[in-house]
């Protein structure tokens, strides 16, 4: 059972593994639509470095780009972030259920032996 959503979550985690890219994402989350130069002005890096990170984020579909005149404007796409956040919530809930079952089986056994 290989879900496309799960594959995509892997790609999102991969793209976000780089701390500099996470700063780009957080800056985009605050800034709406921006150009690479606009982003570089807010971050301690060159426009070229920003462009490279934006391209990686586009591959993970975390960022969308549209050309207006001669400039490319970038925008964060929240959906993949939601999917990754959903993975975290789902895995957390699964472990909560399993740990609760573990606690029950341990305490049942203990009360039997007393």
């Amino acid at each position, binding site marked *: 059972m290989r879900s496309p959503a*799960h594959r995509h979550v892997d790609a999102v985690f991969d793209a976000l593994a*780089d701390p500099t890219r996470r700063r780009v994402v957080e800056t985009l989350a605050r800034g*709406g639509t921006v150009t690479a130069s606009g982003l570089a002005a807010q971050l301690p890096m060159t426009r070229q470095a920003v462009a490279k990170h934006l391209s990686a984020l586009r591959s993970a579909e975390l960022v969308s780009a549209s050309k207006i005149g001669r400039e490319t404007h970038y925008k964060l796409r929240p959906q993949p*972030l939601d999917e990754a956040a959903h993975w975290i*919530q789902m895995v957390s809930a699964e472990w909560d259920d399993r740990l609760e079952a573990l*606690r029950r089986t341990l305490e049942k056994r203990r009360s039997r032996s007393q």
Partner: protein
Amino acid sequence: MKLRDEKATDEKAPWVERDTMVEASPEEVWEALTDEDRLEEWMAPDVELDPVEGGEISVRDGEDERSGTVETFEENERFAFTWSRPGEGESFVEFTIEALPGGSRVTVVETPIGPTAIAAGGWGSRLLRLSHAMRFAPVA
């Protein structure tokens, strides 16, 4: 690893970490975590485990099946393995048992594997907050 001196990750927590307190000794917890029959009482209906480092583990619940390899097997303290569903990315799962007065604390951590994914450790909770904040942010 570079991870430790990386200032950009302000939290060191892994992607998912959960714990529970149980009224049972670390020895009792260890048995429930590492004995096949006991695992089937709480983990999944069908569990196979070769209880040594490097041994195989498989966890099946109906159609849902995951398998992997035992990474750490330190009696009464630490049990870790990798697992994955067919065709999906692997994760690393680690249980630690800590003795408490009158019982134990069991902590489980699940982290997606891959050098890059592990380097991102700690970003899970920030990701949740960011995703949540964006849902309510005005769309530009």
